[in-house]
């Protein structure tokens, strides 16, 4: 099908659709109720949280059904809410835009979010602060929905910050652990750097277009000079890097594993890290006309997908392997989004399928940890396939999906990205291809170390399958990990075309040469994984390694070291200098003046002898002095 450059102005919401704001309001109110309700809600609070997100999902699904049934020109709905800021001629309205792009996000967020909520009921059951946990989860969902449903960048920014806050609260949920508190702070601080980029981008838009609405920015971008387009694009990319944990702001993601596992699933699959991809795709008008900005997106995506995959190969912590994998997969999405109109739809496609299989695998990892007394070290696992059969089978579906096994979800979405990358740039294509091979390698390693081989369990650990409330969400997500790709493959490009202006590609079921090559490389990755970790027993302790690749991977490619050297140390140095300046120079000056005054006063004080005759002498001398002066002045 040949792409037509057709865009439709969003139609005003009428009737039931004008209540679309409830999709955000319900989880937000639920969060407030849960936080304010206190102990009264301890027994039922978690189900209230689940119900709120489920209600949002029902609304999103209804809106989606409405869009499916309406004509293409009437699918994008704008829901004006109220005037937010009115100052002179300058006016910012808060409103929602429910178009083909945002509804997919809303469905993913609420759908996967609801499953994660259900799972958390079981996972967090032993935690006495479960009610608060659900309040934060609801807040997270509400903030993320605000982010994707906003119709202008300022409202988007509100959601953006809300997501940052919720992630901070959730990563640091087990605040009694210093490592969790530090991880939460790290995530928050690194996100602030990205937020600064987004803030400056939004301010530039307000200054240049007088409005931050998507419509105004899209319309105005083409008349802008190249410098400003590139600047706004790069600033938006900085924001996206922060939220989506892309190089160079990637370091927080691995530490974010300190949060409870459902949080990791929520951050990695449905919310937070997808925000950056959304931002880039939503700002397609800017990126598609600025080669500088879009090239930067491709570079960031390609570098991150390799870095993330590299880290994934070397970690023994099951959650960190998955975290590296998320970085890598988000890198794929960024890469696709940076390719321009050929890639937008594929970025979103991969984002959706990734949302399913990564949520599946994270929740599966949580289930494994549940079985292993919260041990995260894969070297202490092994032979869990029989013991935790449901977890193993569902995780297996996620595994097949992420490595791109034919006809599973990732097969469609990832292959499209690799093919599109080769169309635009061979280097990007090769990076994506190599990334696919490494993905297959580290995921095979994870599977073999966790579910196969011999038992390497610690003493006193008796693995058991998780309760139904945890396994049912796993099964649902596994079904989507299998089917989501095939379900959307022939549909998503046409669906998104009016919203993001992507070029629609012809898709054939028979893989092209690049498709075959990808499969070959994936097979090689699996074979290597089996050769190293399946053929021989895995040592229960990580063997010391001098291999520079392993050492670098185990240390997150020295991301922390780089941050430390480039940012933290100079900042600390400057801070110490400023403190020293404050202590020594400023305080010293003030203190010195005070000391001087005290010393002088102590000397002057001695004039007060208490001797009356002394005072008399002083008075007399004074009088004589005055007299002499008077007389001398008379003479002169």
């Amino acid at each position: 099908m040949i792409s037509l450059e057709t865009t439709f102005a969003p139609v005003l919401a009428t009737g039931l659709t004008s209540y679309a704001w409830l999709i955000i309001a319900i989880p937000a109110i639920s969060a407030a109720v849960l936080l304010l309700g206190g102990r009264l809600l301890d027994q039922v609070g978690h189900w209230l949280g689940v119900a709120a997100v489920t209600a949002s999902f029902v609304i999103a699904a209804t809106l989606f059904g409405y869009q499916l049934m309406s004509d293409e020109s009437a699918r994008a709905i704008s829901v004006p809410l109220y005037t937010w800021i009115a100052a002179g001629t300058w006016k910012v309205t808060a409103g929602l835009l429910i178009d083909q792009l945002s509804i997919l996000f809303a469905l993913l967020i609420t759908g996967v979010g609801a499953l994660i909520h259900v799972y958390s009921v079981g996972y967090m059951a032993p935690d006495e602060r479960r009610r608060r946990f659900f309040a934060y989860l609801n807040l997270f969902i509400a903030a993320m929905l605000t982010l994707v449903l906003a119709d202008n960048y300022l409202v988007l920014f509100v959601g953006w910050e809300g997501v940052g806050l919720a992630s901070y609260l959730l990563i640091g949920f087990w605040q009694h652990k210093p490592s969790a508190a530090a991880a939460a702070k790290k995530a928050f601080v690194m996100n602030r750097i990205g937020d600064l980029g987004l803030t400056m981008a939004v301010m530039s838009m307000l200054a240049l277009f007088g409005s931050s609405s998507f419509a105004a920015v899209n319309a105005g971008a083409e008349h802008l000079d190249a410098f400003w387009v590139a600047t706004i694009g790069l600033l938006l990319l900085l924001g996206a890097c922060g939220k989506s944990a892309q190089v160079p702001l990637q370091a927080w993601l691995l530490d974010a594993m300190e949060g409870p596992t459902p949080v990791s699933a929520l951050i990695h699959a449905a919310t937070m890290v997808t925000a950056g991809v959304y931002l880039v795709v939503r700002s397609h008008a800017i990126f598609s006309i600025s080669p500088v900005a879009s090239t930067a997106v491709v570079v960031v995506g390609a570098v991150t997908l390799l870095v993330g995959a590299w880290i994934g190969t070397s970690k023994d912590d099951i959650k960190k392997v998955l975290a590296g994998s998320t970085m890598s997969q988000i890198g794929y999405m960024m890469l696709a989004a940076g390719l321009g109109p050929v890639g937008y739809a594929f970025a979103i496609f991969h984002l959706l399928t990734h949302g399913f299989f990564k949520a599946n695998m994270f929740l599966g990892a949580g289930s494994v940890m549940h079985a292993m007394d919260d041990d995260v070290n894969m070297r202490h696992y092994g032979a869990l396939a029989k013991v935790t059969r449901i977890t193993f089978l569902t995780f297996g579906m996620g595994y097949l999906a992420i490595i791109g096994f034919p006809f599973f979800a990732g097969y469609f979405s990832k292959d499209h990205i690799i093919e599109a990358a080769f169309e635009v740039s061979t280097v990007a294509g090769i990076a994506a291809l190599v990334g696919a091979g490494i993905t297959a390698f580290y995921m095979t390693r994870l599977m073999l170390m966790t579910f196969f081989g011999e038992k390497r369990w610690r003493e006193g650990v008796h693995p058991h399958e998780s309760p139904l409330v945890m396994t049912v969400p796993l099964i649902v997500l596994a079904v989507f990990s299998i089917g989501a790709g095939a379900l959307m493959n022939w549909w998503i490009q046409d669906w998104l075309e009016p919203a993001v202006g992507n070029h629609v590609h012809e898709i054939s079921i028979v893989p092209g040469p690049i498709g075959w090559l990808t499969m070959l490389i994936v097979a090689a990755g699996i074979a290597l994984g089996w050769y190293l970790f399946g053929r021989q027993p895995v040592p229960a302790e990580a063997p010391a390694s001098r291999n520079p690749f392993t050492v670098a991977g185990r240390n997150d490619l020295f991301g922390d070291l780089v941050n430390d050297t480039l940012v933290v140390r100079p900042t600390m140095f400057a801070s110490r200098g400023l403190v020293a300046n404050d202590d020594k120079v400023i305080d010293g000056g003030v203190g010195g003046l005070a000391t001087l005054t005290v010393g002088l006063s102590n000397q002057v004080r001695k004039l007060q002898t208490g001797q009356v005759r002394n005072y008399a002498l002083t008075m007399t001398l004074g009088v004589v002095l005055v007299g002499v002066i008077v007389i001398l002045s008379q003479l002169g």
Partner: protein
Amino acid sequence: MSPDNYLYLAAALFAIGTAGVMLRRNALVAFMSVELMLNAANLAMVAFASARGNLDGQVATFFVMVVAAAEVVVGLSIIITIYRTRRSTSVDAANLLKL
């Protein structure tokens, strides 16, 4: 009549009074010396008044005498109080008025 001699006398009395205040330790004597200084000033003013032929200086003298009388009342009562508490009228002994 030239007031010179009266002025010399007044200056001498004033000097004696000043020296007494500064040198004597007994509070009563120091007090008397203050009176001597006041009266030296009175004498000078009366002498000037007489020399200039008007009454201004003499009027001022009355004021000084009234104030001196009041001052004597206060001063003597202070000295008596000090004597009662300290059994001494030495001004050097009462040296607590210092930091």
